[in-house]
């Protein structure tokens, strides 16, 4: 369970996130939508403390994952990120083989047992429906894969370290429709085992794949509701104007 209480986040003097409180159930897909600069990606990056890397940022409020405030001083950021995988807009495989890309996180965590690595790599590639496509060329460079395959490889890399939460920041915006469809099918399948939070500019994608949707505007969470409800009868006029294309 993910729970945020009155989260405010600042880049210097600029307040990017304003008083956001929300709950995300396990094994669900939650989509964040909203116009550019509304704070949805910033909010997503708070889930694994990615914004810690930016100087001059400040957060107030409680960000609780599985009962623990992840911004407590006692929390080890490395440990936190083991539990929360992240996939970015542009596929970013490492300049290594397909196998080593997936095994990377495991090796960093000190797992070097060959049999263990082979099993986990196969499992991760199978769960991203990539195994059949790459099983005969695991030693080849990840850059030989297509854009869609590279993105699924990055998802496999994130899954290999067994996180419970998967963050996706516009994971299909650089992909063609067929690759996008494959990733969407994958998200639908993965929610059985993971809690997925996705930022997307594509409203139809949010509608297709998510259980709940949050609409952000000017750093505020304007509406957060079941996706069916939000796309058929939104409670707020701002949401209605955005999803119908009258604004944004």
């Amino acid at each position, binding site marked *: 369970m993910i729970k945020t209480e009155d989260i405010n986040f600042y880049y210097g003097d600029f307040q990017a996130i304003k008083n956001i409180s929300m709950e995300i159930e396990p094994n669900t897909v939650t989509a964040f939508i909203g116009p550019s600069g509304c704070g949805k990606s910033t909010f997503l990056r708070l889930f694994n403390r990615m914004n810690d890397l930016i100087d001059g940022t400040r957060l107030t409020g409680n960000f609780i994952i599985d009962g623990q405030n992840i911004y407590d001083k006692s929390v080890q950021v490395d440990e936190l990120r083991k539990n929360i995988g992240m996939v970015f807009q542009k596929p970013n495989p490492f300049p290594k083989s397909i196998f080593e890309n997936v095994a990377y996180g495991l090796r960093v965590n000190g797992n070097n047992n060959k049999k263990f690595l082979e099993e986990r790599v196969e499992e991760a590639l199978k769960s991203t429906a990539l195994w059949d496509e790459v099983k005969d060329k695991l030693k080849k460079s990840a850059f030989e894969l297509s854009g869609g395959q590279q993105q699924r490889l990055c998802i496999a890399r994130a899954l290999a370290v067994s996180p419970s939460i998967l963050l996706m920041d516009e994971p299909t915006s650089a992909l063609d429709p067929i690759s996008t*469809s494959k990733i*969407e*099918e994958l998200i*639908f399948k993965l929610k059985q085992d993971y809690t997925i939070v996705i930022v997307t500019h594509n409203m*139809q994608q949010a*509608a*297709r*794949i998510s259980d709940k949707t949050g609409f952000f505007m000017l750093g505020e969470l304007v509406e957060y509701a079941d*996706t*069916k409800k939000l*796309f*058929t009868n939104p409670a707020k006029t701002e949401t209605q104007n955005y999803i119908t294309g009258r604004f944004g």
Partner: protein
Amino acid sequence: MKPTELELQALRTETDEMWKLVLSQIEKAKLCYLSYDRELAFEIISREKRVNAYDSKIDSDCENYIALYAPVAIDLRLILSLLKIVNTLERIGDFAESIARQILDEDYPKIDTALAEELQIETVFDTVITMLMECYIAFDTENTKLSGKILATDDKVDQLYYDALPILSNYILANPEKGVYSLKTLLILRKLERMGDHCSNIVEEIVFYIDAKVLKHTNPKKSVDKQ
């Protein structure tokens, strides 16, 4: 199967179930009419609520499907057709219920068997049931070859209805005390005739869904024959 396909599959399954329910409502209305079975009439009236529930549920699911998945091409035509087919099935269900209510009407005694035979009421019932069954097969198998046959059958139902008018007119002249009974019998035939028309409307929707052809406001039989 993709999530969108799973949703479409679920919608089709719900529609199939509603279709079977409406078919059984007409079959029961026929039995109820021919055997003057008042218990069966109550059963039909009670089951009409389920028909209405399917209508509302599928309407809402279609709305959700359009809002969430933005269907195009054959998927869009399927959803648009389903909205109309389901609405039409609900109306057919209303007619079946209305026949059942008429059986419960104190003013409507047991049927005059000779008159019913002359009016071929059982045949009209059977013809409408066959039409709706064939519509179901055409939809389920995504095959419009049956369309022409179903539309031609509707002409037969219309003819049986028009043939009934002089028969009932003569019957009233011969049995003036049975004027109300005769008019109510005509109402039953009218409901069956309307059911036939609704089956034709369903055929138009099936042709729109499968062949992307609009038969509405044309002579549908001619348009289908041309295929």
